[in-house]
């Protein structure tokens, strides 16, 4: 590490690598340390996994070829917010760094540190005048626009005449300070050669991650020039200032990463085959060793592993009662919103049964024709990271454009999915919210994105471009939306977790909150399972070893003390669990995978106990009898219900058949599952209507993952067209009608897109 550090030139040798260790240097003019700096005081040694890096991202304004009067309020916050969310997903970050192989840091080009204003992160610029640092201008990068457009819409509500950045509490001021304080990582170089890859979004993302991790400062600002350059070079829709959507960017980025990674892996395999000894192609300084090639084969699917889940769409033809099933992969779920609803409910609605009728009839292979059908989509395989896109931008017919929905949609910190198939593996998987992308603004064309992210051990942080600020956990709930609420959650990231981790974390939060308590009571800690406790026990800096445990630094000592205090009882915990009475053991069948291991033990113990308690057994028998009776009763009821249901179904079937008969020959053409495609195209056309010259872009993006494949970007358009041509000829006619349907059909589109993408992979 030290050798690596020495490679970084610094013109103001900092006293300490940790930014906060000596925050105030007796300089009376030294400004107050920022909340983030305070948080990071005594942060300990730097970690190599990057979990202790808190960099803002510069919101750059491109040298614009757009009309000068036009402001660019969105700028690149959509990109910044998403990249931050990805960075703080520990598995994703790890994979990015380690794919194709962890490059030795010396081999990589680093951000030019020499011309930076200063590298002493302890001391933000003494002068309050937001200066453009000397040397910064010398960097041949797109510099900030002289008058920074208001990136926070709130600024527009500020008093006219006073510049928002004059107010020390304003985000504008803080952002300027963050930029001035630096260090600023100018990501205008690329290391793709060293990675043995082509220049791509993935390589530039990797560059950013590597640079952040390698830098000895914990805080700073990243200027993601290269990433944006590649993004805009290859994707026309991101070249315009309009309609830049964080979710679309996320989708594109993930798909690009998948593509880049797959492309690389394929190349490696062919190379390995052609060059028998596995010597490398690249002229780069770094030669990824052979075993990396081998490992590539296995780990190239990591994006899928993390984000991909499977949807099963069941379509039941109402004519022949035949049910067809199709599995479709997805990388995120886009859910329609309702006023005053919850994410849970949106997800349930997503999987609600839906009639395919009229223009959306289903082509049944069994009956051989277009039939009315019932369709529903459930989740068969649950992703590790569940990205939920709340569809806040909805096309409104009368305005001919997208409008933002301000619906209040509540989201819990923990989530399970109700809409799983019966055969889903681990259907009760527990998710925890770890990141929220917030859109601030009145509409899709204007606004600003920030993200609020739960970091591994620093609690929740607000990432607003250059600014990074610790926030209270309750702050995360400020973005449910609602009337007069400009800032609403737009993309939610839930990651897989366990109940043990949840309990542990809640406890840690409780401890943090109860820091004023003079007495450290051991009882507080015993709630966790033995396993959890065992892991926590004995670590002086337990926070560092407990993933996702937000412990504020000041409490660390308390927390560790507390764990120390628990040490004696720990030994007893397992014995306690063994003494669970039998009836409870069998009552609560652990379903979560993590629990399965305990199950056997419980049962065994229970049996022993049963034998010991003859009296209990007898009572149990009685209970069984009672239960049997109840069961019988229940079954009877159930049977009754089923019968009712059958009758109802028969009735509905009859009516459906009637309907079907009426509709036969109505001229609607629909191929097998053309429905979703068609509605998707309808949407696209709509978008075209809305955008004029940006024709098809909104819709295009929706198809991005569809056409996303190993074939490279230029085929993008062609692909899309191809898709259009597949559609029934009648499409043009029915397009208007489809628009009306759009709302209800959107989910099809998304799942379809995703499905296609995976099939191609």
């Amino acid at each position, binding site marked *: 590490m030290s050798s690596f550090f020495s490679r970084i030139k610094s013109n103001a040798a900092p006293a300490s690598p940790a930014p906060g260790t000596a925050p105030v240097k007796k300089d009376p003019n030294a400004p107050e340390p920022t909340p983030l700096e305070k948080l990071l005081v005594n942060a300990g040694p730097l970690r190599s996994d990057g979990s202790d890096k808190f960099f803002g991202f510069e919101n750059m304004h491109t040298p614009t070829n757009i009309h000068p009067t036009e402001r660019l309020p969105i700028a690149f916050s959509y990109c910044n917010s998403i990249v931050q969310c990805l960075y703080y997903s520990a598995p994703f970050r790890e994979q990015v760094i380690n794919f194709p192989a962890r490059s030795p840091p010396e081999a990589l080009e680093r951000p030019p540190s020499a011309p930076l204003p200063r590298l002493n992160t302890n001391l933000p610029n003494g002068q309050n005048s937001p200066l453009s640092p000397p040397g910064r201008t010398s960097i041949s990068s797109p510099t900030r626009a002289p008058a920074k457009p208001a990136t926070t*819409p*709130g600024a*527009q*509500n500020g008093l006219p005449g006073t510049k928002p950045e004059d107010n020390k509490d304003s985000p504008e001021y803080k952002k300027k300070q963050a930029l001035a304080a630096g260090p600023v990582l100018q990501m205008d170089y690329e290391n793709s050669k060293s990675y043995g890859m082509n220049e791509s979004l993935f390589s530039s993302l990797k560059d950013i991650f590597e640079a952040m991790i390698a830098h000895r400062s914990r805080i700073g600002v990243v200027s993601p020039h290269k990433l944006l350059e590649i993004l805009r070079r290859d994707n026309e829709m991101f070249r315009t200032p*309009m309609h830049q959507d964080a979710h679309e960017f996320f989708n594109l980025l993930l798909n690009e990463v998948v593509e880049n990674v797959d492309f690389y892996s394929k190349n490696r395999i062919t190379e390995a085959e052609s060059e028998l000894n596995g010597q490398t192609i690249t002229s780069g300084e770094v030669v990824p060793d052979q075993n990396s090639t081998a490992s590539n084969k296995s780990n190239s699917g990591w994006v899928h592993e993390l984000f991909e889940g499977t949807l099963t769409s069941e379509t039941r033809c109402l004519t022949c009662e035949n049910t067809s099933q199709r599995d479709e992969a997805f990388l995120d779920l886009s859910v329609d919103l309702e006023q*005053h609803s*919850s994410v*849970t*409910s949106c997800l349930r609605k997503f999987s609600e049964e839906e009639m395919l009728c009229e223009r959306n009839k289903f082509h049944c292979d069994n009956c051989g024709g277009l039939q009315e059908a019932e369709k529903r989509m459930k989740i068969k395989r649950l992703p590790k990271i569940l990205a939920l896109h709340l569809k806040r931008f909805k096309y409104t017919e009368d305005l001919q454009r997208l409008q933002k929905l301000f619906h*209040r949609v*509540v989201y*819990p*910190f923990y989530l*399970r999915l109700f809409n799983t198939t019966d055969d889903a593996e681990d*259907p009760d998987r*527990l998710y925890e919210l770890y990141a929220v992308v917030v859109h601030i603004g*009145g*509409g899709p*064309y*204007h606004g600003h994105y920030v993200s609020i992210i739960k970091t591994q051990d620093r609690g929740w942080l607000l990432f607003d471009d250059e600014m990074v600020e610790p926030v209270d956990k*309750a*702050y995360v709930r400020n973005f449910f939306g609602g*009337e007069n*609420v*400009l*800032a609403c959650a737009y993309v939610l990231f839930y990651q897989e977790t366990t*109940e043990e981790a949840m*309990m542990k974390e809640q*406890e840690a*939060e409780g*401890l943090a909150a109860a820091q004023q*308590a003079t*007495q450290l009571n051991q*009882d*507080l800690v*015993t*709630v966790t399972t033995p396993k959890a406790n065992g892991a926590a026990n004995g670590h002086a800096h337990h926070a560092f070893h407990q993933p996702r445990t937000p412990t504020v630094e000041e409490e660390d000592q308390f927390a560790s003390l507390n764990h120390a205090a628990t040490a*004696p*009882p720990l030994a007893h915990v397992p014995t*306690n669990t063994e003494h669970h*009475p*039998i*009836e*409870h053991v069998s*009552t*609560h069948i*652990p*379903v979560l995978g993590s629990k399965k291991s305990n199950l056997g033990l419980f049962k065994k113990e229970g049996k022993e106990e049963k034998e010991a308690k003859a009296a*209990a057994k007898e009572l*149990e028998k009685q*209970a069984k009898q*009672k*239960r049997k009776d*109840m069961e019988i009763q*229940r*079954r009877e009821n*159930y049977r009754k*219900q089923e019968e*009712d249901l059958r009758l109802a179904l028969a009735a509905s079937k009859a009516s459906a058949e009637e309907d079907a008969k009426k509709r036969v020959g109505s001229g609607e053409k629909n191929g097998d599952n053309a429905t979703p495609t068609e509605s998707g195209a309808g949407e696209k056309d709509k978008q075209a209507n809305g955008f*004029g010259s940006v024709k098809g872009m909104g819709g295009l993006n929706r198809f991005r993952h569809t056409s996303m494949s190993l074939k490279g970007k230029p085929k993008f358009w062609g692909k899309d067209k191809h898709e259009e041509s597949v559609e029934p000829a009648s499409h043009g006619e029915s397009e208007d009608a489809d628009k009306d349907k759009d709302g209800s059909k959107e989910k099809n589109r998304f799942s379809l897109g995703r499905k296609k993408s995976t099939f191609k992979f």
Partner: protein
Amino acid sequence: MFVLPPPPRYPIGGYPGIPGQLIETNNSISHPTGPEYQLVVGEGTYVLRDDLHLATPPPHPSEAPVHNPNPLATTISPPTRGTNLSIVALAPRQPSQSQLYRFGTRNSTRSQVPPSIQESPHETNSQASDVGSQSVNGIATSPLDGLRTPVYGEGNAALAMINGKDSKDPLKRRKPKSNIIKSNSSFVSRVIPHEALTKRLQEHNPNGLYAFANINRALQWLDLTSPIKEEHLTKILFTKGHALCHDINQITKGPNHLDIIMGFSTGDIIWYEPMSQKYSRINKNGVINGTAVSDIQWLPNSENLFLAAHMDGSLVVYDKEKEDAVFVAEEHSPTTEEATSDAEKKALLTVKKSVNSKNQKANPVSYWQVSSSKVNAFEFSPDRRHLAVVSEDGSFRIIDFLKEKLLHHYMSYYGGMLCVCWSPDGRYVVTGGQDDLVSIWSLEDSMLVARCQGHNSWVTAVQFDPWRCDERNYRIGSVGEDCRLLLWDFSVGMLHRPRAASVRQRGSITSANLKMQRTRTDSSVNRLRSSSNLTSGSLPDEEEVVHPVESRAHTAMLPPVLAKAIDEHPLCWLGFEEDCIITSCKNGHIRTWDRPKEGATNDDSSTFASASASHP
């Protein structure tokens, strides 16, 4: 060609929490009619009687509306809560001749719950709020009852002295010290009594309902049976504290006396007597616990003691007449040797100060750390021995508060739990939470009985309708953030079988019963020496305390019998009265829904039977 979209149109108007107007306004009442204001259920149609809209007070002048234009402002706003009601009828309860409850079938020790606990049709003052133990308290006026039911802290001589002092003069209620109208406290901003307050009080029908409702920083005293019910009897404006919860003591109530406690966002607690306009402040400036009070209730059978849930997860018992003292956690078991620690940690309830502490000169009377996160609600069981507590971490606990011991610890499916309610017979507990579910738990079987799915958002209040419950069938009502009221008919035989029910391996119900019984017997027998139990932490034959989350595949699902959006704003409170259902929303709308006209009160069981039969 590219057409520039119109400039951004941000929603106009203020930001949430900042009311638009700056002057004090009056409540308004409206009587909307139409099919959208009717609830059609099996037993008939509930019709909206009126919609009383409480006026949101303007911000206090000293608290000039901080108009922070930054939607990302990280300033933490103090907790606030939508309108909640505490309802009371002054008339003493009539002995019940309940048609709905037959207790012969139950022979557990719990059946010592007096039958009068079951609300009779005439029992208009059952306060069916989420702070619903009032129905329990209300009957404690019966002396017989007092003998049967243990009183919290009765084993402690230090407390008994004070209790005894009160009983010397039971007719004359003790009032708080300070006059709230003349008060120059910085906590109370303004008190606005009605011009004809005395006259209205005299005219009040003793069977009629008084209600206390919070809205923003105001607390209003309303007469729900008055023809001019929109005119408050008294309105108190506090300076910045918001009353988040309040409760009326059903034992001490009388024509000239009402004891009300309110918990504030500042942590303060106010004991208020509206008839004499006297008040006193407890936990002043949060000297005992500085976090906001999320729920507050009088202890069953107690004139003086009440329990407050603070947002740091502690439950604190205060005495309304005691002075505050800086709280230092006591050694909860000073005499206990460390050997019992393993039994103790199973208790999972940290008793920082026990009711048996000898030091009872000042508040708090007792202090328990229940959870590491915020306690959202609690409720006392009808048998007055147990306490159900739900908290933000998703836990649901059943505590034997007499013995200060945790009996059960359950978890929500996911997310925090927001509300809790006991069935009138104490056999079931229902909870609602951020998993959009109403969950029904059986105490006897110590298990989750069913999950009720139907809300589209978080469930904020859940209540049993005692007028539509009998020993087998239960009517549950719930309201949520989705602005909807849902009614559920629950009877054990009707449950939907879960998918995996066939392979379900339920434990022996009987042995669970046995355990439950044993605990109960213990609790009654050991009542007097509960202190020793407490110090040893738990009984040797420990039953399972922490219950894991039940898989969805193994749980019965219950559909609602009614689901209807009844307001434009998220709902936050629900109450069942003899003749109506009352709901309230975050915006201050109190809506009263008349029960079906056709002899519902006389013919309850038959209508109910048909209602449940008609339900698929």
